[in-house]
């Protein structure tokens, strides 16, 4: 092969548009090779999307912190069962919210699983964002109650939103369920 031919071949390698008789087969081969490479790179990128840990598709928005099924709650009264559960480090789980939306708001009644038992409770503080003038707490607080609405404990040691007075009065039904006894064991309203 002359030097000019070899140069031409080299050229063809870099620039596929300059064809020559000598290097046509070579050009063909490089082209298929490039196609395969391109395909594999594409595929690789497609695989990479799932294999790179940064772009995995878990949600990245702020949590809503709402009380729904299986939310862990914090008992804030001094009932023995609630105290024990909190000290043990096994806080109660919400297993039902007694309202049509199934999302707990201030004053809603919930059913909780606590120390292997089912107990009813009232939500007295929420971590979720609240409307203006209504306090938002750092934890989801509940107070355990009996079936007739009277609390199991005798004291609540954390502040309670004062709108609870209105809500619990509205929710109480005469001779059936009376939540207002819960208000009398509160120590502080905010």
């Amino acid at each position: 092969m002359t030097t000019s031919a070899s140069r031409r071949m080299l050229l063809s390698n870099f620039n596929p548009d300059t064809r020559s008789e000598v290097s046509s087969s070579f050009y063909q081969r490089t082209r298929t090779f490039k196609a395969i490479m391109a395909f594999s790179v594409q595929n690789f990128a497609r695989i990479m999307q799932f294999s790179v840990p940064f772009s995995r598709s878990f949600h990245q928005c702020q949590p809503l912190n709402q009380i729904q099924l299986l939310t862990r709650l914090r008992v804030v009264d001094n009932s023995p069962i609630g105290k024990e559960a909190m000290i043990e480090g096994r806080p109660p789980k919400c297993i039902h919210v007694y309202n049509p939306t199934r999302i707990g708001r201030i004053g809603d009644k919930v059913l909780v699983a606590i120390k292997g038992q089912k107990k009813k409770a009232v939500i007295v503080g929420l971590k979720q964002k609240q409307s203006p003038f209504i306090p938002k707490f750092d934890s989801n607080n509940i107070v355990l109650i009996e079936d007739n609405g009277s609390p199991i404990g005798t004291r609540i040691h954390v502040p309670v939103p004062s709108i609870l007075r209105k809500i619990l009065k509205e929710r109480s039904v005469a001779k059936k369920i009376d939540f207002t006894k819960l208000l009398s064991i509160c120590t502080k309203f905010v």
Partner: protein
Amino acid sequence: MLRSLVSQTFRQGLVHSFFRRNAASLSESVVVQNPVETSEEAGEKSVSNQKNSDESGTTVVVAPPEFRFMYPEFLPDPKMERRNKLKEKLERMDMLQRRSVIEIPEFYTGSIMAVTVADSNSPNKFARFVGICIQRGGSGLRAWFILRNVVDRQGVEILYEMYCPLIQKIEVLRLERRLDESLLYLRDALPEYSTFPFEMEPERRLNNSVVPLNPIKVKLRPRPWLERWERQDLQGVQDLNLPQRFYDRAKEVAKPWEKYDLMLQYRKTIPAEEQEKIYAEVHSQLQQQDLKRKIRRRRGPNSEQ
């Protein structure tokens, strides 16, 4: 020409005299009452001049540059599609009217405040809450701030709307600033950093002294946190003690070019010229209200009828 110069010095003033209140700016409050045409040199002299004669001879009212930080809620929402000049002006008038009824003092994020609200549920019909202002936002009549406190080892936060008629009284117990604009990281900090007694007395301040900056560095609890604080370039937190990969990732997702994006800045803020106009509009009324309050306070509490 003078106008452009004034606006230029206005901007420079923002950079240099953050929260600086010199005695001159107070003495000008008297000037407002009687519109005196000052000479051209006086106009060039300083930004704090209230009245400058324009080239055409009309007087131009210029509010002090610190108004931007004292009353940020007077600036409208910079979102273009929500702008409405008439609505903004009406809103400003309503805000001034509300301010003539109750005193809404100057405060910043990091100030400790007490708010008394009409509360129909409580037996004495009022509810008072003390806390540190961790965030401030909104514009116009919808301006709000969040107070945070730890009461009986339980973190409590309340969002207050500044111009809501339910609010009876807003007191600033300690006027100061912090190193960050938003102190939401106090939610993840140790409780002692956001614990304030309800019986706190308001601290006495000298008139027109510089608003002190509290350089406290807060210690955060270990992870898990509510947000990824290591990505937010916070000044007021101690070393976060995270593995190196967290900082590496924070560097990867950082957007350091955004501070050079002029268009982004333009869309996110109200231009300085427009700010000047807005503050010039409300400035005289705000200062009159302030003067009235000062006189009333000097006369004593029993002179109020």
